[in-house]
């Protein structure tokens, strides 16, 4: 199985997103690099709006991910509640 | 189809045809395993230039800064012209011994392996 990944700018908003991703994807690996945070996982990564909102303590739209997103790898599917990255093999 | 184009039978302008070089042709020279010179070098010379000028002027001009240059045994040098083994004739014009426009002349100097033997 290939790894999907996501990299975010290292800032306050991203910290909440990373916390949420870690909670929802317990096997994910989080790597801190200068100015950025890379999260990778075998096969799939999910970002749930609800979990992020809980960590941030305020409303958050999934599309707002773009503000802090640096890069990603995997097939993307996005709706109002989740963003999912997958490799299908 | 020599190119995918909207225009049928499209042809491109040949930017480097020999007529554009004001009577010169381009010749490339490379010294194998001496990469202190990062790439082969290019010269624009007249086609009737004698090979002796390559030996006496162009090669020293390009490569004499190498610490091994003075130790080259020119009698033992192995030449390649456009990838084929080649025996140059000093008193014959380049064009008359097959060194035509955009030809590559490579030389190999057996026993000289570059700075500290690293091919540099």
């Amino acid at each position, binding site marked *: 199985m*290939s*790894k999907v990944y996501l990299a975010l700018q290292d800032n306050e908003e991203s910290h909440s997103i990373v916390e949420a991703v870690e909670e929802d994807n317990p096997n994910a690996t989080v790597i801190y690099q*200068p*100015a950025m945070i890379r999260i990778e996982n075998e096969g799939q990564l999910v970002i749930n709006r609800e979990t992020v909102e809980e960590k941030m303590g305020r409303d958050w739209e*999934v*599309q707002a991910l*773009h*503000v802090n997103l*640096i*890069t990603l*790898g995997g*097939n*993307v599917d*996005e*709706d*109002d509640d989740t963003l999912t990255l997958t*490799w*299908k*093999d | 189809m*020599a*190119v*995918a*184009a*909207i225009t049928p039978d*499209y*042809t*491109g302008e040949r*930017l*480097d*045809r020999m007529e*554009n*070089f*004001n009577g*010169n042709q*381009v010749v490339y020279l*490379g010294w*194998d395993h001496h*990469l*202190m*010179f*990062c*790439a*082969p*070098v*290019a*010269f*624009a010379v007249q086609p009737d230039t004698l090979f002796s000028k390559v030996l006496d002027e162009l090669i020293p*001009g*390009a490569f004499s800064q190498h610490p091994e240059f003075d130790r080259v045994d020119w009698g033992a040098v192995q030449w390649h012209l*456009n*990838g084929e083994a080649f025996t140059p004739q000093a008193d014959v014009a380049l064009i008359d011994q097959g060194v035509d*426009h*955009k030809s*590559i002349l490579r030389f190999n100097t057996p026993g000289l392996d*570059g*700075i500290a*033997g*690293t*091919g*540099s």
Partner: protein
Amino acid sequence: MSTRKLSLKDKYRILTRDLEWEYSYRDYREIFKQEAFEGIKITDWSKWEDPFRLTMDAYWKYQAEKEKKLYAIFDAFAQNNGQQNVTDARYVNAIKLFLTGVSPLEYQAYNGFAHVGRQFGGVGARVACQMQSLDELRHVQTQIHAMSHYNKFFDGFQDFTHMHDRVWYLSVPKSFFDDARSAGPFEFMVAIGFSFEYVLTNLLFVPFMSGAAYNGDMATVTFGFSAQSDEARHMTLGLEIIKFLLEQHPDNVPVVQRWINKWLWRGTRVLTLVAMMMDYMLPNKVMSWKESFEVYFEEAASALFKDLARYGIEMPRYAETAILEKEHVSHQAWSIFYNYTHAAAFHTWMPDDKEMDWLSEKYPDTFDKYYRARFEHWRELERAGERYYNPTLPMLCQTCQIPMGFTEMDNPTLTAYRQSVYQGERYNFCSDGCKDIFDHEPEKYVQAWLPVHQIFQGNCGGPDIEDVLGDYYRINLGVDNMDFHGSPDEARWNAWHNLQPAEDKLKQAS
């Protein structure tokens, strides 16, 4: 009265489907003239889907937010004299190369996407291209803004657009994009949207920008990551177009495969410039080019191509060569620029002992074996006051236009030479990849504007090389070019940072 908010999917559907109309009084082929000539078959444009489902209102909203954040940081950087806080003035030379070599490509990408967006019959594809076009325009603008601050304090930034069109090494990225933009719309999408954005821009914008951060360059890392946040969307678009093309018709598969082979090779050649920026131009090291290549090319691309295997798409043909070359290209590129620094609008230098040791550690199989002795020799010459400059002009590859500094991977000290004869004329190449690209479409590449040949033809001024460099390229000779050591950049940097000599202080105090 309650208003129901549309879901993301509904909004996207309404924007990209309901805005389309039937072409009742003009022939479809007449409206979309470029859709068919490349041999790509589209049967149903409605299958096109943007997985982010981005609509114009959301686009403006989030782009505006990104811009606000970005400009706040530019302001802070300028107000705090950020230029003095980078690790070392040598670092700024990477930024010069970025401004002259990369930023104009953003502008070319803007042009390219604006153009192809008009050529597609599907409205979803048109909307996506329009947004990407705007993104690219934003990138070039923010990059120029960010680097304009450096222009006030360092040499070599002043004429970047002029230089991009003329200077020998800048013909490498320029011709890369010219090639893509003069292709048909589908090839452009595979070239830039997929091969470059999906597979290769990560190598430019992620590890290098992380490196900029690590070298105190807040302005660059910020525009880099801000641009890359758009790239994440572009990458996704790139992957979607590939899947869309492959699903539309089986006849598309071999065409797309050939484009992938071509553009990944073209891209890795262009990224040679980035390889040397990573390994040689960042004083504080984050990761080597080789490591970056492993993460962002080998790992990412193998996942990607495994995913595409179900369509019959294979790993690009020259990937194996590119993987072997990761051990060499940064050193070979730095050698090229060290040889010809007198003809460049930025400075080079030899690594110091600590930097050489880092290279030995990161490249245990190649650096000491092939490159270290060469560099130590150059350093000795410099110490003796005879800094080596190559007095000739280099031979260039007809396709990638890079000086022929690449070697055979089974014999790494032997220059790789390839040649084709087309209609009685010889054409020379650095690699199988570049030769095959030429051989497939010779009528395109016979037109290559090779800087060295143009100089020989008398089209770049002269008669001396100094005239070409100074008048035609507009390099400020003795200022922008030559080794970093002894440059005005170095002198200014030392003046900012050197404490007043202790003796002078004592004199003033008494």
